[in-house]
């Protein structure tokens, strides 16, 4: 689409419109320039697209609350979760596990990630072909979060199919489809079974579920809260890391000079991760709800309206990043919005960085240079998640 064609068409931001999923960035640029506080009249929500506004909003939870949910649709669950609470409730919940998610605390998982990565890659090396998502990236993060949560390896595929279904949105449909609700129930059943088995066995493991069960016994969280907590961790830790790995491989393919540079020097991988999180991150946006009238850039958002914080737009804001539309693995943007920001910033960010780094080290070591089969790329359709369901690659068999 040419520049003049987009300039003539009416500006609209509709995250449920599949047509924009391939390349939403021209629309985001127009939003930033023409309508930094955009009102989607069809669904009556607002959208912030500039870096500074998104960063301010994630810090200012009193004005932009998470208590009404972080999706644009109405919040169905009334259970207090990490994702839909503000301080002090949020702080109490986050403290239950935050200590397990610092870089030093997740570092011991490195060998497990490396071993699993190797296991997943080896069967495909002789063929010189694999699907980065199906054969690798879809399985690796789920395997690690299952290990963290203490679930059985043989259950990983089933859990992943349920969590994928929970995240999916049908085209043009605002709310979670029935299949998503069913998948949620199945996940809760599974968690209940796991918890009951641990209780029966008198298990006192100090992993995440062990910590949550102990907190429940001390009255610091109720049973529904424990289930909801595990639910959030199962989804958050799975989908997004998968998409990050796929997006990194895709961007390397699209930027051959930088691909060569990373192949020659793996110390560039952390920079690749941060720049992919900025340039093409897996989380497009999270919503908040205004608690009062807010006026920004001359537009007033009334109280109690949903506001989409478009992180993938803020991350391309030339007001904050020079040459924002250029992908540069040497940029090292540690202040990107790819993990959100403020008190709800991604709890699993250190784990995601670890997995992404080790995954790329193993992919590049095993495959060397690869080529993405662009005709068979398939994109996931979701208002929140940005990435592929298939990234087929070919490489020199070994």
């Amino acid at each position, binding site marked *: 689409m040419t520049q003049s064609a987009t300039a003539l068409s009416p500006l609209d931001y509709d995250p449920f419109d599949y047509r924009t999923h391939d390349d939403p960035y021209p629309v985001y640029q127009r939003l930033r320039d023409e309508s930094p506080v955009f009102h989607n009249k069809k669904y009556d929500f607002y959208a912030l697209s500039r870096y500074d506004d998104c*960063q301010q909003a994630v*810090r*200012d*939870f*009193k004005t932009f609350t998470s208590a009404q949910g972080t999706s644009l649709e109405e919040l169905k669950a009334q259970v207090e979760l990490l994702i839909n609470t503000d*301080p*002090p409730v949020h*702080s*109490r919940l*986050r*403290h239950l596990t*935050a200590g397990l*998610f*610092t*870089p*030093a*605390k997740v570092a011991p998982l490195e060998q497990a990630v490396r071993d699993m990565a190797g296991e997943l890659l080896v069967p495909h090396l002789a063929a010189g072909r694999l699907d980065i998502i199906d054969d690798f990236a879809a399985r690796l993060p789920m395997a690690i979060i299952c290990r963290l949560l203490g679930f059985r390896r043989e259950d990983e595929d089933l859990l992943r199919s349920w969590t994928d279904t929970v995240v999916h949105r049908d085209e043009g449909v605002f709310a979670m489809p029935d299949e998503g609700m069913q998948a949620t129930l199945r996940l809760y059943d599974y968690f209940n079974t796991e918890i009951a088995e641990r209780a029966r066995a008198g298990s006192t493991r100090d992993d995440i579920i062990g910590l949550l069960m102990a907190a429940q016994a001390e009255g610091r969280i109720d049973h529904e809260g424990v289930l909801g907590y595990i639910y959030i961790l199962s989804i958050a830790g799975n989908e997004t890391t998968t998409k990050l790995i796929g997006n990194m491989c895709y961007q390397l393919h699209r930027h051959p000079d930088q691909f060569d540079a990373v192949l020659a020097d793996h110390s560039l991988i952390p920079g690749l991760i941060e720049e992919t999180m900025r340039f093409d991150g897996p989380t497009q946006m999270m919503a908040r709800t205004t608690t009062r009238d807010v006026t920004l850039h001359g537009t007033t958002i009334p109280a109690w309206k949903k506001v989409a914080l478009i992180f993938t737009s803020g991350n391309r804001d030339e007001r904050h990043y020079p040459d924002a539309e250029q992908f540069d693995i040497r940029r090292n943007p*540690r*202040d990107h919005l790819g*993990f*959100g*920001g*403020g*008190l*709800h*910033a*991604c*709890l699993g*960010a*250190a784990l995601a960085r670890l997995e992404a780094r080790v995954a790329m080290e193993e992919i590049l070591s095993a495959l060397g240079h690869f080529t993405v089969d662009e005709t068979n790329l398939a994109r996931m359709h979701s208002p929140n998640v940005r990435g592929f369901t298939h990234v087929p690659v070919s490489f020199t068999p070994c």
Partner: protein
Amino acid sequence: MPSITYIPVDGAPIVADLSPDMTLMELALINDVPGIIGMCGGICSCATCLVHVDEGWFERLPAMTAEESEMVSVLDHATPTSRLGCQVRLDESLDGLTVRVAEPA
């Protein structure tokens, strides 16, 4: 009411009611203390919650982990009494604590 005082880089001190079990970083965000960003939400990954603790108070804080110590030690703008706000869990014994918000890196 027990309280903590934050001194921003520019501007008047902000006196915050001390909530036990909150961290210095969380309390700062709750009280809109300028200059404390908390970009990583408290998982010891960004150092945008760095504060300089007044002498006399530094020894009274809960000890630093090796991880926090390592993170602070590589910061150009850290002093010998700097702490990452997200790693300091508050309790009533810290009533009256005063910290200065670090200049941006």
